[in-house]
C-alpha cells in the first residue's frame, strides 16, 4: 500500500508540474555542467530568445485548444513584420499607425482562415497550409524578397530595448500576452467556449454555444498574436526580413504541445517555450554543434508529448 501511495503522490506532482518538471530537470543538469547557466544574464537571454515564439504561441494555444490547427502563423508573422517596415519606410507612416494596420491585416488573414474552415468546411490543416503559401507569396511580392532596413530607432526598441536598464522590452510584451491570454482563457465566456468546443464539439453545439463565431474568433486571435510576434521579431532583427518567420508556425505548435496546454492553462504554453529555450541554451553552453541541436530539439518535442501521455495515464490511474 505504501509504495502505491508514493506512486500516487509522485503521479500527482508530475501531473501538476508538467513541463516545469522538464525545465527543473534541465536546470538541475546544467547547474553541475556549466557555471554560466544560472546567471542573470543567461536567464534574461533565454527569455529574450523565446519571447517572439511565446507571443505567437499564445494565439496558437487557443486554436489548438479549440480543436483547430494553424500552420499559417509563421507567414502571417513575417507579413506583419515586413508590412510594418514597409509602411514606415516606403509610406512614411507613423510607427504606431503602421503597427496597427499591420496587425489588422494579420487579424483579417486569421479571420479568412476561420471563415474558410467553419463555413466552407475546409480541414484546418489544409486550409492554413494553403494560406501559408499564399501569404509567403504576398511577402515576396510586397518586399521583392529584399529585407527592409533603416527602421527608426524608436521602433527597434520594441525588439532590442530594455526597461530599467536590464529588463528586455520583448520579454515584457511576452509576459503581457501570457497574462492577458491566461485571463481570456480562464475568465471569459470565449475562453470557456474554446475549451468546450475542443473537447466535444457536438456537446458544445447542443449546449447553445455559437460554434462558428467562436471558431472564427480563435483564428482571428491567432492572427492577432502572431502579427504582434512578427513585429517584435522585425524590431529585433532591425529589419523586415522576408525569410524570418518560416520556423515560427511549428515552434509555436511545439510550445503548445511540449507545455501540455491541454491541461487548461496558457501558462503551460510559456513553459513549453521555455523548455525549448533552455534546451537550446543548454546545448549551446555545452558546445553541441548546431546540427545536432536540431536533432536534440526534435527528440524533445516527441519526448515531451510522450511524457505527457504517460503522465496523463498515471494520473487517471490514480483516480480510477
Amino acid at each position, binding site marked *: 500500500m505504501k509504495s*502505491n501511495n508514493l506512486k*500516487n503522490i509522485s503521479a500527482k506532482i508530475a501531473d501538476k508540474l508538467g513541463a516545469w518538471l522538464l525545465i527543473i530537470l534541465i536546470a538541475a543538469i546544467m547547474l553541475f555542467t556549466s557555471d554560466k547557466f544560472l546567471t542573470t544574464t543567461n536567464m534574461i537571454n533565454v527569455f529574450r530568445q523565446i519571447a517572439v515564439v511565446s507571443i505567437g504561441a499564445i494565439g496558437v494555444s487557443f486554436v489548438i485548444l479549440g480543436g483547430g490547427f494553424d500552420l499559417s502563423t509563421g507567414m502571417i508573422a513575417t507579413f506583419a513584420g515586413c508590412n510594418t517596415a514597409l509602411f514606415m519606410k516606403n509610406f512614411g507612416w507613423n510607427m504606431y499607425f503602421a503597427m496597427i494596420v499591420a496587425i489588422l491585416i494579420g487579424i483579417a488573414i486569421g479571420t479568412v482562415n476561420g471563415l474558410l474552415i467553419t463555413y466552407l468546411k475546409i480541414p484546418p490543416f489544409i486550409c492554413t497550409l494553403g494560406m501559408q503559401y499564399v501569404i509567403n507569396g504576398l511577402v515576396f511580392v510586397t518586399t521583392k524578397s529584399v529585407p527592409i532596413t533603416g527602421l527608426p530607432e524608436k521602433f527597434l526598441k520594441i525588439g532590442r530595448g530594455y526597461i530599467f536598464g536590464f529588463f528586455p522590452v520583448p520579454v515584457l510584451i511576452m509576459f503581457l500576452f501570457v497574462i492577458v491570454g491566461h*485571463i481570456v482563457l*480562464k*475568465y*471569459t*465566456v470565449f475562453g*470557456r*467556449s474554446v*475549451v*468546450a468546443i475542443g*473537447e*466535444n464539439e*457536438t*456537446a*458544445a*453545439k*447542443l*449546449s*447553445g*454555444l*455559437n460554434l462558428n463565431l467562436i471558431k472564427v474568433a480563435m483564428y482571428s486571435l491567432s492572427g492577432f498574436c502572431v502579427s504582434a510576434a512578427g513585429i517584435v521579431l522585425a524590431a529585433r532583427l532591425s529589419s523586415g526580413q522576408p525569410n524570418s518567420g518560416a520556423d515560427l508556425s511549428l515552434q509555436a505548435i511545439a510550445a503548445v504541445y511540449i507545455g501540455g496546454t491541454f491541461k487548461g492553462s496558457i501558462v503551460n504554453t510559456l513553459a513549453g517555450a521555455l523548455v525549448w529555450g533552455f534546451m537550446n541554451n543548454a546545448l549551446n553552453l555545452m558546445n553541441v554543434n548546431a546540427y545536432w541541436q536540431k536533432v536534440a530539439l526534435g527528440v524533445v518535442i516527441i519526448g515531451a508529448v510522450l511524457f505527457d501521455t504517460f503522465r496523463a495515464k498515471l494520473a487517471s*490511474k*490514480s*483516480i*480510477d
Partner: protein
Amino acid sequence: MEDILRLTKICKSFPGVKALSDVNLTIKKGEVHALVGENGAGKSTLMKTISGAYKKDEGSIWFDGRDVEVTSPKQSELMGISIIYQELNLIERISVAENVFIGRYPLKSGFVQWGKMYKDAQALFDEFDLKIDARRLVRSLTMAQKQMVEIIKAVSINAKVIIMDEPTSSLSTKETESLFKIINKLKSNGVAVVFISHRLDEIFTICDRVTVLRDGCYVGDRDISDITKNEMISMMIGRELTQQYPERSNAIGDVVLEVKNLTDGGKSVNDVSFAARKGEVLGFYGLVGAGRTETMRMIFGIDKKISGKVLLNGTEVTLKSPRDAIKHSIGFITENRRDEGLFLRSSIRVNTVMVALHKILKHGFISYKKEKEVSEEYVKKLRTVTPSINQKAMFLSGGNQQKVVLSKWLFSDSEIIIFDEPTRGIDVGARREIYQIINDLVGNGCTVVVVSSDLEEIIGISDRILVMHEGNIAGEVLKEDFSQNLITKYAVGEGA
C-alpha cells in the same frame, strides 16, 4: 449440467476503491446466465477481469476443466471467452466477413483467400438464419445487425462463453426477439451466454439463472424460476423497492409547446403535430427508428425542418439552432449523454454551468466562486454521488452523469425539458431518483417531454402518451387508457 467457468473469491481494488470483493460466479455449459446489479456494482469490472483487460488481485478463475490465469483479452479470446461490449468493436469501413475473421484471415502462400473468407462467413450467417450479406460494409448495417456480426465472430472462434454487455439497449422489440432466437440457438449448441442487462423483463424471458452483485460484492445466485422480479430488485438494491414510479399530483395547465405539421422531407418525420401543457409529462413511445428522436432534434434546432411550425405560449418561434431553442427556455437531454451531453474530461462544475455561462459572470468575467456555489447546490439538490465537484464527468456512473447533464439544464432555467431515453444505462435505484426529479420539474410548472423505448417506463411516468410509427403520430393514449397492449398496437402500426 457441468460447469464451464468458475470464478472464486475474486478481488480487485483500484486506489481508494474496492471494486470487487470476494465475488463468485459459476456458469454452466449451455445456460444463459444473467449478471445484474446497479451501476457501480462491479459488473463491468468483473467482466474486464474475466477478459483479461484488468488483472485480478486475488481469487481464482477456473475454465473448461482447469485453473487459468488470464493475462490479456487476446488470450481469453483464444481460450474461448468472447465479450460483446455495448460499444461494438467492429471496423466500419471493411466488410462483414473481414470483421468476422479479423486477425485470422484464411491465407494461402501469404495471400488472403477472399473467396474462402466470404464463403465461410456466409455459411455461419446462414447457419444462424441471419440475412446479412458477408460482403457488405459494416457501416451500412443497422445497430442490431452489427451486434449479430459480433456474435457470429465469437461463434467463429469457437467461443464457449459469450458475454453480452447490455446487448438490447439499442435494439427495438423485434430486434430483441431475433437476438433471443440467436441466444437460444447458441444455447442449444452448448455455448454459455452471460447476459448483462438492466431490463429485468428480458432477463425473465431469456435467462436460466442469475447472479446478483451489489457494491462490488456477491449477493447470490438463483434459478430464474425460483425468484420474482421484486425479489431480484431487492437483492440488487439491498432493500425493498417501495414503488418504482413516484406519485405526483400537480395540476396541469395551459398549452405551452405546440408543434404543427413538422416534417423533415419524408426522411424520418412526417407531418407531426402535438401540444404539451404546463406541468405535464408527455410521453413519446415508438420503436427505434419511428422518428421520435428526430422530431425532438428538429424542435431543438439541431436538424433542419422542411416545414412545420413550433409555437411557444401561442406565438410562433423560429428555432434554427440549439442556441435559439435555449433562448426560448427549451432544454434537451439527449439519449447519448457521453457524446452529446457531457464534456467527459471536464469537471462537474464546468459541465454544470456550460449552458448558462452568463449567469456566473461578475463584471463580465467568470466567477469561480459562483461556479462553485452553483455546482455544489446542484450536486446537493440532485443528490449526485461524487467525491467533489472537481471530479471529471467520465469517472461518474451513468446515473450521476445524467444528473450532471440535468443540472446544466436546470441551472439554465429551462421551462420545457425534453428527455430522450432518460434512464438508458442507469440502474434501478438511480432511475427512481430521475423520475422524482421529473416530478419535481412538472411540480414547479415545467413542461416535460419524455422519449422512451421502455414501455413500462413511459406508462409509469407519463400523463399522456403519443405513439409514433414510421414518422407519424400513430395514436394518442390518455392516462386512463394506458395499457401495454394498446400502446404496442399503435407502435407496430396496427392501431385503430
